[in-house]
């Protein structure tokens, strides 16, 4: 450790190995069997439970919790995974505080919901750590489907189609499958290689061929896929990033938060990852929080998350905002970047204060910044796609696009929140619709 948090500029190795290991360990350690039973005992087994309604994948939560409580966690896992094949990842990354746990009647009763997310993880881990894949393929149908993007939407779609007997080829631009699970989520939410382990486990269903390093547009075209396969599912996410169009926005030290997170997730040695002393993240979503918190955990001295509106408008959940604050991230609101200053490399960022309706106040503030991370939204990339709506592929029903035989889901498709769990649901539902269409 030659550097410290005080070292100026963008530098690697600000902390010792023990600190990295501690900082990037599991955010929510797994429940042990006793904790799981205590937590499961709190479930009331509600009628037509509101937690199920709140879950984008409609997992039968009271049933799986009862299965845990009665000593059958593998049966619980099957209940979860039959609705959500990525239940293990969703248990880790879902904003449960705004989904199932917000709806839990014990949240209303006592302000303390049943720990649904952690119980889900307990069950899915219990099954997956034994290497058990509880589903098997139906007789092969001879139908083939191309899935573009091996992220949550694509893999969910692929698994369901494979289970129904279709042969799936999944194309992904990256070297590894998993999409944002592998490249775009904070490391402390899914440590110890869970994302790849889940992909490997999912592929045990059989009937799915992965084609890595194949991007739509560059390496394969939609027309080609349409002609070679019986159906196509587009789940490639949002590959583009919004630019920061301000004076000095191209200075050294400015980069995309998604790349910063991807590099961090793929790093074998966190101590080799450079991070600024004074980091400023621009944005208010989950990506912004993930980048800001991880900058702090990598040893940045000062991390500021700058958002153009008030905290109540941030896409990041209150839990995420509080997490950032608890890690020492300063959240600035009602500020828009006006200019980046510095001789070659960025040294300061200048903001203007704005009102809630984004009207400039004319007052500005400059804060030190040797690293600026853009997290101001991602965009759909590609030409020759089906019709768009609001910058995304327009879908109707279960992911049907304007092009016959082409379905879409996940972040690249219109409708639904940009959440892992939503992507899984959309992939699954599109698969069922593709199946009905192919077998009809």
């Amino acid at each position, binding site marked *: 450790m030659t550097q410290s948090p005080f070292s100026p500029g963008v530098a690697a190795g600000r902390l010792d190995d023990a600190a990295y290991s501690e900082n990037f360990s599991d955010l929510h350690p797994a429940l042990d069997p006793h904790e799981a039973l205590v937590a499961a005992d709190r479930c009331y087994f*509600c009628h037509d439970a509101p937690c199920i309604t709140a879950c984008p994948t409609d997992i039968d939560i009271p049933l799986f919790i009862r299965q845990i409580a009665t000593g059958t966690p593998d049966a619980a896992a099957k209940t979860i995974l039959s609705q959500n094949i990525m239940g293990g990842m969703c248990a880790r990354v879902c904003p449960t505080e705004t989904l199932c746990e917000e709806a839990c009647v014990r949240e209303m*009763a006592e302000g303390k919901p049943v720990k649904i997310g952690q119980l889900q993880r307990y069950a899915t881990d219990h099954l997956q750590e034994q290497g058990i894949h509880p589903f098997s393929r139906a007789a092969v149908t001879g139908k083939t489907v191309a899935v573009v993007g091996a992220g949550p939407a694509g893999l969910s779609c692929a698994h369901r189609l494979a289970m129904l007997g279709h042969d799936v080829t999944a194309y992904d631009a990256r070297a590894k499958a998993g999409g944002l699970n592998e490249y775009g989520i904070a490391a402390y939410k899914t440590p110890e290689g869970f994302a790849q382990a889940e992909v490997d486990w999912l592929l045990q269903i059989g009937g799915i061929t992965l084609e890595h390093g194949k991007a739509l547009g560059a390496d394969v075209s939609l027309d080609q896929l349409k002609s070679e396969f019986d159906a196509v599912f587009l789940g490639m996410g949002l590959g583009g990033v919004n630019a920061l169009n301000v004076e000095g926005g191209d200075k050294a030290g400015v980069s995309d938060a998604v790349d910063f997170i991807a590099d961090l997730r793929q790093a074998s040695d966190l101590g080799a990852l450079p991070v600024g002393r004074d980091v400023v993240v621009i944005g208010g979503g989950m990506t912004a929080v993930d980048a800001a918190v991880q900058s702090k955990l990598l040893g940045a001295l000062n991390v500021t998350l700058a958002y153009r509106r008030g905290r109540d408008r941030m896409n990041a959940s209150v839990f995420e905002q509080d997490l950032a604050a608890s890690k020492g991230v300063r959240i600035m609101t009602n500020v828009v970047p006006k200019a980046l200053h510095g001789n070659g490399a960025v040294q300061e960022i200048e903001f203007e204060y704005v009102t809630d309706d984004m009207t400039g106040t004319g007052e500005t503030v400059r804060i030190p910044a040797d690293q600026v991370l853009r997290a101001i939204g991602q965009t759909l990339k590609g030409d020759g796609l089906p019709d768009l709506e609001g910058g995304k592929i327009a879908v109707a029903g279960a992911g049907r696009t304007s092009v016959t035989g082409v379905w879409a889901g996940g972040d690249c498709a219109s409708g639904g929140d940009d959440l892992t769990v939503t992507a899984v649901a959309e992939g699954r539902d599109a698969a069922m619709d593709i199946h009905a269409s192919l077998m009809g």
Partner: protein
Amino acid sequence: MANLQSNFIGIKSPNPFWLASAPPTDKEYNVRRAFEAGWGGVVWKTLGEAGPPVVNVNGPRYGAIYGADRRLLGLNNIELITDRPLEVNLQEIKAVKRDYPDRAMVVSLMVPCEEDPWARILPLVEETGADGVELNFGCPHGMSERGMGSAVGQVPEYIEMVTRWVKKHTRMPVIVKLTPNITDVRKPAAAAKAGGADAVSLINTINSITSVDLDLFSPEPTIDGKGAHGGYCGPAVKPIALNMVAEIARDPSLRDVPISGIGGVTTWKDAAEFLALGAGNVQVCTAAMTYGFKIVQEMISGLSDYMDDKGLASVDELVGRAVPNVTDWQYLNLNYVSKAKINQDLCISCGRCYAACEDTSHQAISMSDDRVFEVIDDECVACNLCVNVCPVENCITMEAMEPGLIDPRTGKVVEPDYANWTTHPNNPSATAAE
């Protein structure tokens, strides 16, 4: 603070909370700790005859039933009477009684069903200065196969005979402990009375298998792959015990038999319920075995606060208060009409009332799209199931309808007068109402 002083068949104790004859009262060390903690008295764990003592199994002696969060609701045991030498127990009883003269010291006894063994042991117990004896006619396992315990308690003639011997050979008050493993508890109670017993205590434990080990296919507790039935106790048996106590308390021919109430007493409230149903005091075991002797402090403060609240000056004023209200079904007022009412401010929208009513009862609760649950008075028969399954205290209540109103379920006016089944027109053997 209310006066909790108790005088049960002449045996005085500072409060009505005694520890029952069981493992907690098996030896001097435990009983001293109990008295230091505040227990009013103990019934020393059952003594057998002189000579080689009984032996216990060396595997598990207890099995359990749990509620949520492993809260122990029921305990079963296959332990026998004391397995320590008679003379050791007698010395210890004497020593403890000498040091705690204000506490009740009752000694439980079980010897063969012949007069001589009883005649031999009673003077030895008297010599300790103990306040009384309790005859263990209830133990349902191990001893019953040897012609003792519940083998005696299940035959009223034996109860009467042995009780008579005991009364003949001692001046001490005699409590006969009854087994619940019978069909009508009034028969053994009557036999005890006929034999001259000063009181009965009930219930002893209930024949039970708590669970089955599904790998070994053996009942729990499992001893080397086999299990035997044990005696069940703890909170789960309280309703059975309360009923048996009430059956004796309200029987005209047994009304004068003092009762020591036993069976699942865990809190002051449980104790107050036993007292209200006619028990003169209570005996506790499982609660102490679960939480330790300190629980008596809550029992003392709780009962005292309750008595102050009700203006009861002594425990005796509480004893039997509920007995006149224990009746038979046929005398219940069929003109009393109530309806469930859900307090929307307290409701947490879990929908358990709805599931229970819709699936298993009378379809008398409605559910809106936004999860508001309301009682449909037209269908509600006031069964109380919704109240029972609701996780929130007092969220659902049963509200009596005022006489003169029309019950929307039956379309009939709620009558102000009492009328029961014996005069109901649907009863083929009804007597004329007038």
